[in-house]
């Protein structure tokens, strides 16, 4: 096992949902208070040297330049701060930047946060804002939504490999079930395959229940140099691998439109860095922005052969009690997808799982966890591997 890149000593996450009457910065205060309350050092706040803030759109709160404002609301008035924006991967972009900051030796303690407050606008306006992450010169211009972009991948995958709408529905059923065990999840409702198939079309073949939620939320972690982590907690979680990549945003440039090659590349990089094999991963949070995405991700991270992702769901392989549990938190699908917060919320879930603090959704004895987060149509990618010290 290689030396960790950095260690997570504290983590917090706001309640996810339609958070009427709360602004983004206030959601982050909620997450931050939880994080610092978990450290055994009551002065951990004063040890933070730098902050990286993942946030996607200026449109929702008519607010760009969020980094100093967020820091200010957390009580930092002279902290070096940077905002990262990589669409739905903005949070993981903050984490990877933070890891580089720690690994470079420039800082020893960093705050990594992600936040998005999306529910101030009508749905069509929110979709317009999200669509801005696709290529204006081709995708936006054609009237595509993100559901539409993933639907194009789904139609192709159904045509070429025989993936079915029922298999996609099984992703939603599983993740909704997991979310009922997560009090912070946006959705708290069990659904059936039939519910998904009967829900109204959003972008065929994707229906309402195939889509992640428009959610308000924030999450944060505090990371340190590995050798000082135990000053802040008796149970630090090490970041042992970090992989990243990019690809054409526009699907028409991809040889096969349902291949999201950047996931495979980022996963490989993270696994090699950590000297871990995918089969040794005990729990994973995958970017299920749409049900088809989770299926394609099984294939890209290497737990299913190309075209066979849907089969894993029929076998229950990725259920909480399966051989490769995916999205115990409920995922983007049911926990919710506050764009800039999503990558960090995935890390929060893995942090809980590896510390045996995930309550009724705990994967027994989980030692190694993987978080996969992507932006746009799968054009920015981050994969992180976490490990406990037991």
């Amino acid at each position, binding site marked *: 096992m290689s030396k960790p890149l950095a260690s997570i000593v504290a983590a917090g996450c706001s309640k996810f949902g339609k958070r009427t009457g709360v602004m983004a910065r206030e959601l982050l205060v909620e997450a931050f208070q939880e994080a610092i309350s978990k450290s055994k050092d009551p002065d951990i706040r004063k040890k933070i040297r730098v902050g990286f803030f993942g946030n996607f759109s200026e449109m929702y709160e008519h607010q760009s330049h969020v980094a100093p404002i967020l820091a200010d609301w957390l009580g930092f008035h002279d902290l070096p701060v940077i905002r990262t924006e990589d669409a739905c991967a903005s949070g993981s972009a903050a984490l990877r930047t933070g890891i580089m900051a720690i690994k470079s030796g420039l800082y020893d303690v960093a705050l990594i946060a992600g936040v998005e407050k999306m529910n101030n606008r*009508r*749905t*069509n*306006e929110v*979709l*317009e804002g999200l*669509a801005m992450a696709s290529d*204006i*010169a*081709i*995708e*936006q*211009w*054609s*009237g*595509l*939504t993100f*559901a*539409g972009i993933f*639907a*194009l*991948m*789904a*139609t*192709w995958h159904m*045509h070429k490999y025989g993936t079915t709408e029922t298999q996609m529905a099984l992703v939603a059923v599983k993740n909704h079930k997991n979310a009922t065990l997560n009090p912070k999840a946006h959705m708290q409702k069990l659904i059936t395959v039939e519910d998904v198939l009967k829900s*109204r*079309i*959003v*972008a*065929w*073949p*994707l229906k309402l229940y195939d889509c992640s939620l428009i959610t308000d939320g924030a999450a944060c972690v505090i990371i340190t140099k590995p050798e000082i982590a135990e000053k802040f907690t008796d149970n630090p979680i090490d970041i042992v691998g970090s992989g990243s990549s990019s690809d*054409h945003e526009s*699907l*028409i*440039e991809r*040889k096969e*439109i349902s291949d999201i090659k950047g996931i495979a590349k980022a996963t490989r990089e993270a696994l090699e860095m950590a000297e871990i094999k995918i089969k040794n991963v005990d729990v994973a949070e995958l970017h299920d922005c749409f049900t088809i995405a989770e299926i394609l991700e099984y294939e890209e991270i290497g737990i299913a052969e190309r075209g066979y992702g849907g089969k894993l769901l029929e076998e229950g392989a990725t259920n909480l009690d399966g051989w490769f549990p995916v999205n115990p938190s409920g995922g983007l699908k049911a926990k919710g997808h506050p764009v800039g917060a999503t990558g960090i919320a995935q890390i929060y879930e893995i942090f809980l799982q590896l510390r045996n603090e995930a309550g009724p959704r705990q994967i027994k004895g989980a030692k190694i966890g993987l978080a996969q987060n992507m932006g746009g149509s799968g054009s920015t990618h981050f994969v992180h591997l976490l490990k406990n010290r037991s």
Partner: protein
Amino acid sequence: MVSIEEFYSKLNEGELYGGKCSNCGNITLPPRQICPKCLSTQIDWYKLSMTGEVESFTLITVAPKNFENEAPYAVCIVKILEDVKFIGRIKISSQNEIKVGDKVEFVIEKSISNEWPMWPKIYLKKLN
């Protein structure tokens, strides 16, 4: 020199041109100054057919704000040549009205906008 604005102004006149790499022959839509395959900067305009085959499609019923008034519509990825694809939308109300492999023709609606982007709308018509 190729450019996106020129690509769309040609399309406004009803003609679809890609950027063809004179080194490796790769064609991109819209054209770019650097070939994504071989990184050559020798890119020339190359006239493409206005017809192709549906490679994939989606029926959009919940549209972004700027397209709300048009919904529902299908967006199709259309294969014009091997490895040369483009996107257009077609006014239909059920996914059963179209399938992978259908032959389609691009139908261009000139831009009437006087602010950027003054790009045409790109529709599709089914051919039989």
